[in-house]
C-alpha cells in the first residue's frame, strides 16, 4: 500500500482537478499540490533513481530537504531541468520525467549497476581508471554522471527581474516564530519584511494540527498575516532567502510560476531574524533508502498541507518527542501506526521497491511505510552564510546558533527552541531586541547516530549514494577532516547540499574516530540555500549589457564610412574601413604616409589637473620633469606605479600656469584618474589640487600625414598654423565652440589633434572629410594606427610593455637622471631588480628579405641543446610603407645586441631576425617636424 488522498484536510483546493503526466503516465492533482504530493496521493512511490547506483527512490522529505525526487518538467513546450518535485507547484498540463532514469524511474535500465556496488565505492574512479589513461574513460563517465539535461531550447522571456529593497527587520521564515516576530516588530513600528518559501504561510504548524494560542492553525496564521499587513509589514510568500551577504544584504528568490524566471530581491536589512525552523534527520540503518522510508516530519507535512496520507500501515521510528502530535494526526487521518524504539535493535528495511516491513533486532513489524526521525536539526544555513558560529547542544543533540553575526538573531526551532510556546515568546522578544526568558525545553531526544561496522548498506547521502561504508573508507584513507570527507565521498554535495546527510556524515566520522561530534565540526554552508537558476543572477545583463562598451560620438559616421567596429580597451572603435581588413589597413597606412589620414582619438584621456599646486603635483606624478613645461607646450611622459613599473604613457599639455591636461591612454582613463585622486588625497594638499575627468565631454579627430596641415588650414578654426611646432598646443574655435589643436603625433608623421565638445564632432568630421577630399584623405582605423606607430617604434602600454617593464627598459633613462624632484616610483627604480643587468629592453627586429611577419608572442631563444627564452615579440606587422615585416620585442640585454642575429620559436616553427633599433622609419624625425 502507498499514499492516498484523504477526503478532507490540507491546504489544497479539491474543487479543481489538475491533470499532469509523470514518466509517461497520466495523473491528477489539485491547486495547492506539489508534483510530489500529487504523485504520492496517486499512489506513486518510486519518483527517482540515485546518482551512482541508480537505486529506486521515493521522497524523503516534503520540502527543500528532499534529495530524491528530481524531475525534468515540461509545460506548454517550455522545459526546465532538475525541478525538485517537493517544491515544484503542480500546474495543469505539466509533463514530468524523473532525471537519471531510463525509460522511467520505476524500471530504470541502469538499475543493474547496483549489482556492482562492491566495486563502486567512494573514489572508485580515481583508482580504477588509471590505465592506460583517465581521459580515455572520462567522456563515458561524464556522460553517465549528472542529473537532468538542459534541452537547449531557449524559453522566451525567461529573464529575472531584479530589485533592490531595504527594511528594518527581515524575518526569514513564515512559520510560527517568524509570524510572531514579524507581527511584534511591525506593531512596534519597524519596517518589516516577512519572507517564506511556501505559497501559504504557517511553516510546520499543519504537521500536528494542534491549536496555536487557542486558535486552529489556519486561523492563527490568517490572524497574524492580517495583523502584520495592518501594521505596515510586507509579506513575500513563495520567496526564499537563499543567501546572506555582507552588511545585512539578503538575497531573495521569488518564485513567479513555472517557466518564468524568479525575481531577485537584494534586500538590505538593518536586522535579520532567522526563523527558518528545523529539519528532521534520517536514521542510518540497512536499506534506509528504500521507497517508503520517509521523514516523519515530511509525512506530517504531506498530511497537513496536502491532505496526503503517505501509507496505511506505518511504522514510526523516532528517538525524540516531536513524534507524539504527528502520530496522533496520522492516526486521526486513518493510518494504523506502530511506534517502535529505533534503538531497540539492529534495523533493516525489508524488501525492495515494495516495502513490506522493518526488522528491529529479532522483531519484524509489517508495514507499508517507515517514518524515521533521528532528531531535529535547526536550519542554520543562513546563520553560517553571515559568519555566525554554531554551538553543540548535547541536550538537543544538534548544532544550534552560537555567537551571532552582526545584525542577526535566531528564534524558534532554528534556534533550537522546538516547543511552540517558548518559540513564540522567543521570537517576539528577538523581534523587539529583547532577551527572551529562558524556558526549560520539553523536547526530549535519545541520541542515535550511525554505528560504524554495522551490517548492511546504510545510506548517509541519498542522492549521491554515499553509505556508511564510504565514510569508513574515507577514514581509512585518512580523509578524516569533514571538508576532505565531503570532497572525497561527495557527501553533502548533492542538490540538497547536505541538508539530510551532513549530520549523519559527521556523526559517523566522529564515531569512527572516537571523538565527540563537536570536535569533528561541520562543513561550511554557502549560498545558495536552495538551487536557483543562473538566470537569477543574470537578469537584463545579457548581450550588449554583459560588458557594455563605451561608445563614440561619431559611431554613426564611422559605420557610414564602412568602419568595422571592434572592441579596444572598453571602447567600440573603428578597426578599419572597408569590407576587406587587410586591403583596408594597407590603404589606410599608405594614405596616412603619402597624403593624409583622419583618426578618431576621442577615447584618449582628457583629465584636467588644476589648482595652485597643480604644477608640483603633475611633476610628482610623472617620471619625466613636467614643472618646466611652459603654457601652450606638450610633453611626452610616463606615469609609474610605486613599484617603478609603467602604469601609462601619454602626453601632458600645460593649458595655463595652474592648469594641465593629461592625455592618457584610451583604456587607462579610469585607472589614471584613480591614481591622481589617490595621490592628491594622500601626501598632497587636496584643497590646492583638483582633478576633473572631462574625457566624455570632448571628441578628438587627429589629422596625420604630409597633407594634414593643408586640410586643417582649410577649416575655419582661427588658429595660425605657421610656426606651429611639434609638441605645442593652440586654442581656436570651430562652429562657435572652443577648439584645441595639439601638434602631437602617434604616427611619426606631422599630426594635428583637433579636440572640441562632442556635440560639434559631427560638424567637424563633415568639414574635415570635405576639406580632405581633394587631398585623398582617408579615415584611419585603430589597426592602421597600430602599424603606423610600430613603424616609428612608438610603444603601446600593455602591448609593448608587460608587468615588469620600467621606463629605462624602453630607452627612457635620461629623464630620470635629469629630474630633481621626487616622483611616484622613484624609490623602486633604485632597487637591484630595477638595475639588474639582464632586464628585457625594447628593440626592433629586422627580418630577412621575403620572410613572413613574426607571430606576436614568439619567443626569442638561446641556441644550444637547452634553449631558453630571452625575450618575446610584442608587436609584429607587415609595413606597407617599408614593404617588409617589422617587429618590436622585449629582449634581455637588448641594447647591447644591436645587429645580432637571433632565433625565434613559436608553435613549433623557427625563424631568425636581426636585432635593430625600434624605430624603422624616419629616425631623424624629419616627417614628424614637417
Amino acid at each position, binding site marked *: 500500500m502507498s499514499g492516498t488522498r484523504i477526503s478532507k484536510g490540507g491546504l489544497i483546493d479539491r474543487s479543481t482537478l489538475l491533470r499532469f503526466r509523470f514518466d509517461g503516465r497520466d495523473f491528477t492533482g489539485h491547486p495547492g499540490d506539489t508534483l510530489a504530493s500529487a504523485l504520492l496521493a496517486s499512489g506513486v512511490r518510486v519518483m527517482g533513481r540515485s546518482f551512482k547506483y541508480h537505486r529506486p527512490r521515493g521522497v524523503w522529505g516534503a520540502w527543500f530537504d528532499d534529495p530524491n525526487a528530481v524531475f525534468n518538467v515540461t509545460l506548454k513546450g517550455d522545459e526546465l531541468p532538475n525541478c525538485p518535485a517537493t517544491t515544484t507547484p503542480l500546474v495543469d498540463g505539466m509533463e514530468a520525467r524523473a532525471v537519471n532514469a531510463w525509460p522511467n524511474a520505476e524500471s530504470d535500465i541502469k538499475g543493474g549497476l547496483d549489482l556492482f556496488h562492491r566495486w563502486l565505492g567512494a573514489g572508485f574512479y580515481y583508482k580504477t581508471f588509471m590505465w592506460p589513461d583517465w581521459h580515455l574513460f572520462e567522456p563515458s563517465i561524464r556522460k553517465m554522471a549528472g542529473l537532468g539535461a538542459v534541452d537547449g531550447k531557449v524559453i522566451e522571456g525567461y529573464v529575472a527581474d531584479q530589485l533592490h529593497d531595504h527594511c528594518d527587520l527581515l524575518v526569514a521564515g513564515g512559520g510560527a516564530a517568524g509570524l510572531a516576530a514579524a507581527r511584534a516588530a511591525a506593531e512596534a513600528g519597524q519596517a518589516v519584511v516577512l519572507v517564506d518559501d511556501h505559497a501559504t504561510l504557517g511553516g510546520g504548524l499543519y504537521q500536528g494540527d494542534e491549536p496555536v494560542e487557542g486558535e486552529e492553525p489556519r486561523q492563527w496564521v490568517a490572524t497574524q498575516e492580517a495583523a502584520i499587513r495592518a501594521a505596515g509589514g510586507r509579506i513575500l510568500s513563495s520567496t526564499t532567502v537563499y543567501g546572506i551577504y555582507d552588511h545585512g544584504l539578503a538575497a531573495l528568490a521569488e518564485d513567479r510560476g513555472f517557466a518564468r524566471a524568479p525575481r531577485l530581491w537584494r534586500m538590505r536589512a538593518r536586522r535579520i531574524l532567522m526563523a527558518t525552523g528545523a529539519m528532521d534527520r534520517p536514521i542510518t540503518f540497512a536499506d534506509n533508502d528504500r521507497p517508503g522510508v520517509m521523514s516523519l516530519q515530511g509525512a506530517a507535512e504531506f498530511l497537513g498541507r496536502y491532505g496526503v496520507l503517505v501509507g496505511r500501515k506505518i511504522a514510526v521510528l523516532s528517538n525524540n518527542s516531536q513524534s507524539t502530535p504527528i502520530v496522533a494526526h496520522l492516526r486521526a487521518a486513518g493510518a494504523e501506526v506502530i511506534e517502535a524504539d529505533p534503538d531497540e535493535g539492529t534495523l533493516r528495511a525489508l524488501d525492495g521497491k515494495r516495502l513490506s516491513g522493518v526488522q528491529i533486532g529479532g522483531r519484524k513489524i509489517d508495514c507499508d511505510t517507515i517514518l524515521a526521525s533521528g532528531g531535529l536539526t535547526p536550519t542554520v544555513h543562513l546563520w553560517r552564510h553571515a559568519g555566525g558560529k554554531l554551538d553543540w547542544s548535547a541536550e538537543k543533540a544538534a548544532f544550534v546558533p552560537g555567537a551571532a553575526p552582526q545584525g542577526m538573531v535566531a528564534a524558534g526551532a532554528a534556534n533550537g527552541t522546538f516547543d511552540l510556546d517558548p518559540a513564540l515568546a522567543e521570537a517576539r522578544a528577538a523581534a523587539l531586541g529583547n532577551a527572551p526568558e529562558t524556558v526549560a525545553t520539553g523536547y526530549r531526544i535519545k541520541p542515535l547516530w550511525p554505528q560504524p561496522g554495522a551490517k548492511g548498506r546504510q545510506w548517509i547521502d541519498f542522492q549521491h549514494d554515499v553509505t556508511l561504508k564510504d565514510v569508513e573508507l574515507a577514514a581509512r584513507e585518512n580523509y578524516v577532516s569533514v571538508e576532505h570527507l565531503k570532497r572525497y565521498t561527495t557527501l553533502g554535495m548533492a542538490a540538497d547540499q547536505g541538508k539530510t546527510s551532513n549530520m549523519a556524515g559527521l556523526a559517523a566520522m566522529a564515531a569512527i574516530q572516537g571523538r565527540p561530534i563537536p570536535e569533528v565540526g561541520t562543513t561550511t554552508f554557502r549560498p545558495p540555500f536552495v538551487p536557483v537558476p543562473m538566470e537569477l543572477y543574470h537578469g537584463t545583463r545579457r548581450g550588449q549589457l554583459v560588458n557594455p562598451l563605451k561608445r563614440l560620438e561619431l559611431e554613426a559616421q564611422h559605420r557610414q564610412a564602412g568602419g568595422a567596429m*571592434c572592441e579596444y580597451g572598453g571602447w*567600440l572603435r573603428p578597426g578599419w574601413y572597408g569590407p576587406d581588413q587587410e586591403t583596408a589597413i594597407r590603404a589606410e597606412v599608405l594614405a596616412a604616409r603619402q597624403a593624409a589620414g583622419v583618426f578618431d582619438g576621442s577615447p584618449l584621456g582628457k583629465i584636467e589637473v588644476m589648482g595652485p599646486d597643480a604644477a608640483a603635483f603633475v611633476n610628482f606624478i610623472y617620471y619625466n620633469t613636467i614643472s618646466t613645461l611652459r603654457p601652450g607646450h606638450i610633453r611626452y611622459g610616463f606615469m609609474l606605479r610605486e613599484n617603478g613599473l609603467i602604469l601609462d604613457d601619454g602626453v601632458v599639455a600645460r593649458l595655463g600656469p595652474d*592648469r594641465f591636461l593629461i592625455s592618457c591612454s584610451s583604456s587607462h582613463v579610469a585607472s589614471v584618474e584613480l591614481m591622481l585622486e589617490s595621490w592628491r588625497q594622500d601626501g598632497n594638499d587636496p584643497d590646492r589640487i583638483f582633478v576633473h575627468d572631462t574625457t566624455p*565631454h570632448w571628441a578628438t579627430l587627429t589629422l596625420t600625414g604630409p597633407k594634414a596641415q593643408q586640410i586643417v588650414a582649410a577649416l575655419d578654426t582661427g588658429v595660425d598654423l605657421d610656426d606651429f611646432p611639434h609638441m605645442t598646443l593652440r586654442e581656436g574655435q570651430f562652429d562657435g565652440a572652443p577648439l584645441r589643436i595639439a601638434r602631437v603625433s602617434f604616427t611619426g608623421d606631422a599630426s594635428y589633434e583637433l579636440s572640441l565638445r562632442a556635440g560639434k564632432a559631427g560638424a567637424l568630421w563633415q568639414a574635415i572629410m570635405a576639406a580632405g577630399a581633394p587631398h585623398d584623405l582617408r579615415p584611419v582605423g585603430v589597426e592602421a594606427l597600430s602599424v603606423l606607430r610600430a613603424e616609428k617604434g612608438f610603444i603601446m602600454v600593455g602591448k609593448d610593455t608587460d608587468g615588469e617593464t620600467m621606463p629605462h627598459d624602453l630607452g627612457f633613462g635620461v629623464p630620470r637622471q635629469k629630474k630633481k624632484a621626487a616622483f611616484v616610483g622613484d624609490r623602486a627604480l633604485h632597487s637591484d631588480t630595477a638595475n639588474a643587468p639582464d632586464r628585457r629592453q625594447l628593440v626592433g627586429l629586422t627580418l630577412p628579405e621575403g620572410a613572413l611577419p613574426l607571430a606576436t608572442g614568439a619567443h626569442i631563444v638561446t641556441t644550444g641543446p637547452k634553449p631558453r627564452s630571452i625575450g618575446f615579440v610584442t608587436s609584429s606587422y607587415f609595413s606597407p610603407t617599408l614593404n617588409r615585416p617589422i617587429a618590436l620585442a622585449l629582449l634581455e640585454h637588448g641594447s647591447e645586441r644591436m645587429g645580432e642575429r637571433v632565433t625565434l620559436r613559436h608553435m613549433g616553427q623557427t625563424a631568425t631576425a636581426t636585432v635593430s633599433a625600434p624605430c624603422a622609419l624616419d629616425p631623424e624625425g624629419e616627417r614628424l617636424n614637417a
Partner: protein
Amino acid sequence: MRDDSHKWDVPQNFSAPLAGPGVTISRIIPDRQTLISAPDILARTPGAAGWPDRAAGDSYTLCLRRDRVLEVNGPARTDGWDGQQAVSDITDGLTIFEITGPRAMELIRRGAEISDALPSRSAVRQAFGLEVILCRRQDALRLHVARTEAQALRKQLADHITLM
C-alpha cells in the same frame, strides 16, 4: 581584431521618449553642465542637492562630493582655475535622462540600492552597473550619465521596463 559591428546596436539619439507601465523616460538636453571644485564649494552653494533632496527650477546644483558640485544650466563660466575654484565645462560629457511617472522609483530600484529613507549628501551613485548622478527634480528623477555610457544605460532602462 574581430569586426563586431553587428553585435552592437547602431547608436540612437534618444529623441523619442521611452514609455512603460507607469513610467516614461525622456532625454533632457541642458544648456550647460559645469563641474566646479573648490575646498569651500559646498559652503558657497548651500542649495546643492544630494539624495533625496529635490532640485527645483531649470537651473540647479548637485552635490557630488565634499569639494565638488555639478551646476546644471548655470551661468557661463571660464574653464580653468580662477584662483578660487576649478571649473570644467561638461555639458556634452553627461547625458541626462528624466524618468517620470508613478513607478519611476520602482524602475530605479531595479538598478540601484536606493530609498528615500537612506539619504546621501552626494548625488553620485552606482546604478545599473554604471556611475551616475541621480537626483530628484520636481516630481521626476534625473540620471546624469557619461555620454559614452548613455547607450548602455538607456538599453538597461528599456529592458527593465519590459519586466515591470
